[in-house]
């Protein structure tokens, strides 16, 4: 029977009668002893305060306290602001927090926080200052920092002046374990500029203006450039997977799927705060990290490199470079934002005088609210245009390269959600009020969309069924759209130009200069054709297209077995297609074509991986100068053609010389071998086999083979009566 209170006897209670004082509690006391804060762990030093007089001081303290209290517990008496002999403050203060954890949090969160427009707080731990300043680490006498002597940097854009004076473009090739940079020589073997083994570990990438070649390693990324191809910068982001430059090449963002882990002994470039982050934003000029982020969506930078976004559904926050603070210190809340895109260029909107950058976003249907596409102006954060849409299953945002148009490809489902259809909502950003035009003549699902760069035409690829798990992908159709011809200086409505059915094409590559487009079937088992179209064909225009601003002409069709990628060169003169060993191992190599689709070169290369044309910065010529050049194009081309002809003649001469040499070498070798053979035969006392054969040939009469061929030419049957 279990003991219970009712049955409790006195004896049970009195049984263990002991003296409380005799119990040894020292071990428990030690264990639960409340540690009183000792030393200066709870103190922080705040620098960067404004200079104040004794009267202004309480005001500043109060203001400061508000900020300090947002982190942890402190009070007015805990702030000590020393005053100088002249009655003004020394622009720093000591603050005591109630715990060391709070002090540490203050260092993390308040450091580099702007107090007002002119002042930025610098917060450090008191103990850190002790540590850094201890043991003669600070010298008694002030030593001015040594300014390194000015060293002239290499000319980073020297490649633009092609030494041969032909304005050739460069490209980088990654094949096998080797990366090389070459001059494009059209039909001839590319001229090597630099070739290095194991230059990169995973892939290569040019910076957007072509200044740097980026190599990607396990330890981070490295930028190379200049005529000597030396290392210019390194960004030590361990296990980096991807990187992106801001369009101005001022900043780089690197991303790794593994969160950064900073080893205990520290990291050469990253700080302890970066631990656990996936993104790091670096400044190219200094090579220093600016800020790191945990895994969000890939941040992208605005066209002038200024604002930087890091979308974090359901809200987006904007960071302003270079100080990497949130724009207006707040995030922009957009409920349920799915995707957004910066306008690729600064757009001059009708009736808007202020500097602005645009970005668009879309949100899906939430409850009874419709789906929305919005266009926001930065830095004012005004939504300048929004559009409500219904029955949206997905939307894709496509900016035209100048930011003149924004096409929103909306995949809509019917009420039963059984069938899909696509409409295109085209925002005319430059026009007053931003009118939206709807193209809803498309019956199928659009799988690819591409604007003409610097133009106003576009190509779409549609397919009959939604792409799903089928053995053979369904046939696709390629459709071209262009604006109608209208009077005046405006762009007419977008009209369907032509549709080409029963294709396998899945990719669209516009020339960077517009007008020409390559529609290709890549990474596909069914085909591998590249079709080159001209949208301003100079020949006769079909009657049906007379109101349209395009004249479509298929210039050439080419086949590149196993093609996986296609890229235009930055000048729009050449197209390269390649079969990369990353995707399959069959017939890796590249083909180059001119813009008309005529094949110039074909080179199969073992383990060919990547081709990258070196981008060019924007031209420095003014509009007038460009116009002048266009006017005198005939004269220029005459001299160029002559130069080309001379070069070809010279090259032919060289080839002939080389062949002559090879031929002579061969016959010289043959002669030496024959002489040796002769000598050896004589040595052995053998006669020449040819003599023997000849002797035999004289005896043996040639056999005559007679062949009787019977061929029935015609057979007629006549009945003779």
């Amino acid at each position, binding site marked *: 029977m279990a003991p219970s209170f009712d049955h409790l006897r006195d004896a049970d209670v009195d049984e263990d009668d002991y003296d409380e004082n005799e119990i040894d509690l020292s071990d428990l006391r030690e264990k639960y002893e409340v540690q009183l804060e000792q030393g200066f762990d709870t103190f922080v030093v705040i620098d960067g305060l404004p200079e104040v007089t004794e009267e202004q001081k309480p005001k500043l303290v109060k203001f400061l306290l508000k900020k300090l209290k947002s982190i942890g517990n402190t009070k007015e008496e805990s702030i000590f602001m020393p005053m100088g002999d002249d009655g003004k403050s020394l622009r720093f203060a000591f603050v005591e927090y109630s715990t060391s954890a709070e002090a540490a949090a203050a260092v993390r969160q308040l450091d580099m926080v702007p107090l007002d427009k002119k002042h930025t707080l610098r917060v450090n731990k008191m103990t850190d200052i002790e540590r850094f300043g201890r043991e003669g680490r600070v010298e008694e006498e002030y030593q001015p920092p040594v300014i390194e002597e000015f060293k002239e940097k290499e000319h980073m854009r020297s490649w633009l002046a092609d030494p041969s004076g032909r304005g050739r473009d460069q490209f980088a090739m990654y094949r096998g374990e080797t990366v090389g940079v070459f001059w494009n020589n059209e039909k001839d073997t590319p001229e090597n500029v630099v070739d290095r083994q194991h230059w990169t570990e995973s892939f290569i990438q040019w910076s957007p203006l072509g200044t740097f070649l980026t190599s990607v390693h396990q330890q981070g990324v490295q930028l190379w450039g200049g005529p000597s191809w030396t290392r210019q910068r390194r960004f030590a982001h361990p296990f980096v997977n991807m990187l992106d430059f801001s369009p101005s090449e001022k900043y780089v963002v690197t991303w790794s799927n593994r969160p950064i882990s900073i080893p205990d002994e520290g990291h050469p470039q990253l700080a302890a705060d970066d631990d656990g982050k996936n993104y790091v934003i670096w400044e190219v000029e200094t090579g220093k990290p600016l800020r790191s982020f945990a895994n969000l969506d890939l941040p992208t930078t605005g066209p002038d490199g200024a604002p930087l976004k890091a979308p974090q559904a359901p809200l987006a926050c904007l960071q302003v470079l270079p100080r990497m603070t949130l724009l207006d210190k707040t995030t922009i809340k957009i409920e349920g934002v799915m995707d957004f895109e910066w306008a690729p260029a600064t757009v001059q909107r009708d009736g808007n005088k202020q500097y602005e950058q645009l970005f668009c976003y879309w949100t899906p249907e939430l409850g009874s609210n419709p789906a929305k596409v919005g266009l926001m102006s930065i830095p004012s954060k005004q939504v300048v245009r929004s559009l409500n849409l219904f029955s949206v299953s997905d939307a894709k945002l496509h900016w035209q390269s100048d930011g003149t148009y924004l096409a929103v490809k909306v995949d809509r489902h019917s009420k039963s959600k059984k069938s899909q259809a696509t409409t295109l909502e085209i925002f005319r950003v430059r026009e007053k009020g931003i009118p939206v035009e709807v193209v809803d003549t498309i019956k199928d699902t659009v799988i690819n969309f591409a604007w003409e760069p610097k133009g106003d035409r576009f190509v779409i690829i549609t397919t009959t069924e939604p792409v799903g798990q089928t053995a053979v992908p369904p046939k696709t159709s390629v459709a071209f759209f262009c604006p109608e011809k209208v009077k005046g200086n405006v762009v007419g409505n977008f009209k369907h130009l032509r549709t080409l059915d029963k294709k396998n094409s899945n990719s669209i590559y516009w020339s960077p200069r517009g007008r020409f487009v390559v529609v290709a079937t890549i990474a596909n088992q069914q085909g591998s054709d590249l079709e080159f179209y001209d949208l301003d064909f100079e020949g006769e225009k079909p009657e049906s297209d007379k109101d349209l601003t395009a004249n479509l002409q298929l210039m050439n069709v080419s086949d590149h077995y196993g093609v996986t990628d296609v890229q235009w060169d930055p000048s729009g003169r050449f197209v390269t297609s390649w079969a990369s060993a990353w995707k399959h191992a069959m017939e890796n190599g590249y083909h180059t074509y001119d813009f008309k689709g005529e094949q110039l070169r074909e080179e199969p290369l073992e383990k060919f991986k990547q081709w990258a044309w070196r981008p060019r910065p924007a031209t420095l010529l003014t509009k007038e100068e460009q116009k002048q050049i266009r006017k005198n194009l005939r004269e220029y081309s005459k001299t160029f053609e002559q130069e080309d002809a001379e070069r070809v003649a010279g090259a032919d001469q060289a080839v002939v010389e080389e*062949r002559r040499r090879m031929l002579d070498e061969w016959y010289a070798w043959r002669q030496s*071998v024959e002489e040796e053979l002769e000598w050896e035969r004589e040595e052995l006392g053998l006669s020449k086999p040819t003599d023997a054969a000849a002797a035999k040939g004289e005896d043996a009469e040639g056999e005559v083979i007679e062949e009787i061929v019977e061929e029935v030419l015609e057979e007629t049957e006549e009945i003779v009566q």
Partner: protein
Amino acid sequence: MRPILLSGHERALTQIKFNRDGDLLFSVAKDQHICVWFSHNGERLGTYKGHQGAIWTVDVNPDSTMIASGSADNTIRLWERVEFNEEGTQLLGVTEKRMGHLGSIVVLNINPDIDGEQSDEKELTIVCDESKATVAGWSYMNKYIIAGHEDGSVSQYDAKTGEQLENLPIHDLNMQLTDLQWSNDRTYFITASKDKTAKLVAARDLEVLKTYPSDTPLNSATMTPKKDYVILGGGQAAMDVTTTAARQGSFHHKIFEDEIGRVRGHFGPLNTVAADPTGKSYASGGEDGYVRVHHFDKGYFDFSYEVERERQRAMQQQ
């Protein structure tokens, strides 16, 4: 000219050989028959039956009185390759390492008398213990035996003693040699390899004279007499590809190494090519079971490089 299609085999071709006069064509395939054809019109002279397994190789003696064939029928021996010497007095064979036999090159004496008795005693045995030999042949005056190996190397043996004189890595490592064919005077030979190249090699010192790159693994290579061309044949094996591109063989200029044409017509890879010793035609045998005999037309004989013509004119003037 239209090629003559010889459809006498039911399975993939393994080797074709012209006799020295160029009027007969011997073809062997995996279907156990040896076919003999008149090369000028493609008429079948006859077939040899008797092998029980796939036949890998055939050679005909200089007088066209005897042929030797090597087959995978386990009743006799595993011959990978046979070749008569220049005079037809000796026969060379490559055996595969299988069923207790070491991979080796053997030399047998041949009794030139057709009705005479042949001895089966081996004159010489060269054991290739490092890497199996896949192809082998006699050099000029039976001086050397040249063998190509599975590891991409080529060896030179003394034909009398069997001593290895040289072993050079001519082709990429572990890219096996698939063919070795001789020039008319047997002073140099052409090798074909899975490393997608064919090479012209001198017999006396194994110096690589020329390299012919291809875009496909090669199965065979031959040299055309009269004109300085080489013909390469190959292609991805059917099990390695999902779709075959139309490139199986190619013509190259022997001296300039340039590609000058393509061999077309076969479905699937080319297994063997052979050139007529008289220089009038060539034959190709494919995985598709057909032999195609191509007679060269006038354009072929007329075509020559400017520098070649230049040289010819200079020779005539002398």
